[in-house]
């Protein structure tokens, strides 16, 4: 593709929507094999310096999105723009090596035959020798790798390997940094520390980043915004807080944390449930069946001999106790209490709901029958 072509294509698209973001996907569909789309009609964009997290269960297509952005997967339809330039469409795919994307693979893919410095310098061939050395030194310092310059990858710990992979990807000043499940190969303790470190580093360098993960805690800790994917399809794109508290679909509600779905019915403009009335935020018609989503941290229990709900189970989780409560109708809900309040199984409890907002779903939208 010539520059003129690219300008013309970009120009045409610009007519109805200006390209202002670093990266934009417009109705992108990809297929591993024809007839089974791995992602369908995906659209989102990311601002400079933002950390976007693609969150979803395995097989939801999140890695495919990443690989399409990197240029490893051709797109079937739709367009991908990197800094305003069309890089992927059904007819054209600009090769990865011309895209200036940095990528950190799940298993890091450090070149085993190269030392730490040579791994980091791998993408810096266009620089002069002096500049290259300076850049590598800078990256070593930023990534906290001083003293490990002469080591080979197999002589590094998991966390150090990850830092090298990150330094290698960041050294070339990528337009966008792509991280594919970067913490999944580390033990939980190390993963937590690396999350903090990486988060700080990315913010300091103001690197636009897309992170793929299946772990919502990781997404919450790292992301400025979260895109939740399910079966190749974007369910919600919002800030972590909104994704957690105001999930757009029952799938999102369930995937980003524990949620109970309480059946109810609209009467006189209110949702009537076993646990009381809620505002009809869906504006559903009178008589419609709906479900109310409630998170365990919004439900509180207090022992009360005259109450009909009973504690069915208790899970001690260190910082909290998670209670399973059986309502008179047989409906199960969960409540999270401080770890010091211990109630025995079978204790009759009174239930209070302290939600600042109500999330309602249509019954048909439920992923599984409640209870």
């Amino acid at each position, binding site marked *: 593709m010539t520059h003129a072509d690219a300008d013309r294509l970009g120009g045409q698209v610009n007519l109805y929507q200006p390209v202002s973001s670093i990266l934009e996907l417009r109705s992108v569909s990809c297929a591993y094999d024809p007839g089974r789309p791995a992602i369908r009609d995906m659209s989102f964009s990311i601002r400079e310096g933002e950390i976007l997290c693609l969150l979803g269960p395995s097989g939801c297509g999140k890695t495919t999105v990443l690989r399409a952005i990197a240029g490893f997967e051709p797109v079937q339809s739709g367009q991908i723009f990197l800094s305003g330039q069309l890089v992927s469409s059904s007819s054209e795919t600009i090769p990865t090596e*011309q895209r200036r994307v940095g990528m950190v693979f799940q298993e890091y893919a450090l070149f085993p035959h190269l030392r730490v410095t040579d791994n980091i310098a791998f993408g810096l061939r266009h620089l002069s020798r002096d500049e290259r050395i300076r850049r590598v030194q800078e990256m070593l310092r930023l990534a906290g790798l001083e003293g490990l310059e002469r080591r080979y990858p197999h002589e590094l710990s998991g966390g150090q390997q990850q830092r090298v992979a990150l330094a290698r990807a960041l050294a070339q000043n990528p337009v966008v940094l792509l991280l594919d499940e970067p913490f999944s*190969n580390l033990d939980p303790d190390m993963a937590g520390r690396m999350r903090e470190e990486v988060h700080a580093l990315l913010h300091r360098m103001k690197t636009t980043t897309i992170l793929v993960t299946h772990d919502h805690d990781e997404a919450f800790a790292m992301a400025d915004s979260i895109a939740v994917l399910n079966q190749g399809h974007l369910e919600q794109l919002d800030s972590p807080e909104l994704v957690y508290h105001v999930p757009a679909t029952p799938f999102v509600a369930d995937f980003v944390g524990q949620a109970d779905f309480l059946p109810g019915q609209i009467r006189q403009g209110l949702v009537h449930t076993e646990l009381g009335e809620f505002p009809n935020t869906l504006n559903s018609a009178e008589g419609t069946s709906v479900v109310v989503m409630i998170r365990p941290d919004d439900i509180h229990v207090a022992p009360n001999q005259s109450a009909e709900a009973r504690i069915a189970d208790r899970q001690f989780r260190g910082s909290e106790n998670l209670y399973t409560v059986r309502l008179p109708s047989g409906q199960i809900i969960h409540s999270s209490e401080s770890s010091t309040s211990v109630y025995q199984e079978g204790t009759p409890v009174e239930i209070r709901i302290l939600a600042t907002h109500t999330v309602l779903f249509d019954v048909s939208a439920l992923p599984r029958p409640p209870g």
Partner: protein
Amino acid sequence: MIAVRRSSISPLQLAALASAALVLSPLGYVTAMALSADAAIWHRLWTTRIPELLGNTVSLAGAVALLTLVLGVSTAWMVTRFEFPGRRLWEVGLVLPLAMPTYVLAYVYNYLLGFGGPVEHLWQMIAGPQARVISPQSFWGVTFVMALDTFPFVYLLTRSALLSFNVSFEEVARTCGASPLRRMFSVILPLLRPSIVAGLALVILYVVSDFGAVSLLRYQTLTYAVFQQMTGRSDNQAASILSVLLVILALLFLLTERWSRRKSRFYQTTGRVRAPQRMRCGWWHTAALTVCLAAVIGLSFGIPAYLLVIWSLSPEAQAILDARFFGFVRNSALLSILAATAGVLVGLPLAYLAGRKPTWINTACLQAAYAGYVLPGPVAALAVLVLFLNVLPFFYGTVIVLVVAYVLHFLPAGLQSLEPSIQQITPNLEEAARTLGLTVRDTWRRVTLPLIRNGVIVAWVLIFLQTMKELPATLLLRPVGFDTLAIRVWLEASEEYYQLAAPSALLIVLVGLPALVLLLSRDWRAAQEPS
């Protein structure tokens, strides 16, 4: 307090020690003989033969290695990175040359490229009546024949490495802006290096210890010279000196390979590995790849095999298919069965003890058994001959001497399949059997043996097939008038009776094919393709 019963040396231990002695004593004798040789002999050899022989051997090994490097890596690349009609067929076909002993290929090319041969005729029609083709009995002729015969070693190892290559390395290089050429030279080839080097080491050992091709093509190498010293001059002392040099040379190559591979186990990352996708080819690409692969397989297997069939069907060849010919077949089979059985019986205690009780003595016994790896056929023959002449002279000229030489020579091949099959069964299985009330003997019979049965069978078949095509040791040690198929091929081919050599050669090639199946099934499993 628990009393530990210190058992005295078990019969198994004795067997292992005896096996190690069987391997080491001939070697010791040859070395002692070389070292005790008169300084004048050393001086004579050193000033006359050795520089030339060393130069010839090393330059041949180098040239063949270079050619197999190109052939092996490029063919492996073609069948692993492209998808085109017939790919699977070529993938298997590229191994076929291994079924062709070097002396068979050498004798076919002696005819094809020889003076007045078909290639020269063809060339003279194009380039005029004075034109000559490269002689098969020259440095380049031998290089060409040996490379055609041995490139599958490089092909097989490179192919396995390419199939298990983690495509993330390539992808990460692309995100770093590396061009295809740079990816090839600074990522893919360096990562394949350990496998390629291992393949080249096999090629070099093969070339250095080859006798068949160099003897038929009259190219002087150390191995050929050992044979000549023993037969032409009956000078076992000079032969032993050359042998020691040869073993040192082979050891040097082997150690270099080990040294260059010392880091290779770090070269594959753990965890998720995605194999690269094959590139789908259009008709033009398909045609180009097919022509390349057909040329390689045609030259190394197709054309020689075709000629062997044609010659075998000729009236001259048909006339020798009599009782005498079947006698040669029987001799070959008898020797091979004896060698394979002896090899397995000797190898089993060694492999079992080293796997189960890896004390230093058991490990040392096993390592000693691998010495045959660096012993070319004539050297093994010389070693066994010297031993028997000194210790058990009344066995000289019997089949027993021959079988001992075979075991010494081919034990490593057997051990390579016995060892892993024993290591695969966890000792817990045997211990579980003991807790269920079985005696040691019953445990062996009902648990261990059934589990290692396949490994034992593979080892037996491999030794059998190697013995079938063995040439130099048989030539040197056989009882008078006891000819095998391999001997017949060599004798007839030396006299340029191409048709008469063909039936025996064809039979050796056909019998060799099952060995390839074994080799492949092991190798294919090691690098199973993702579907």
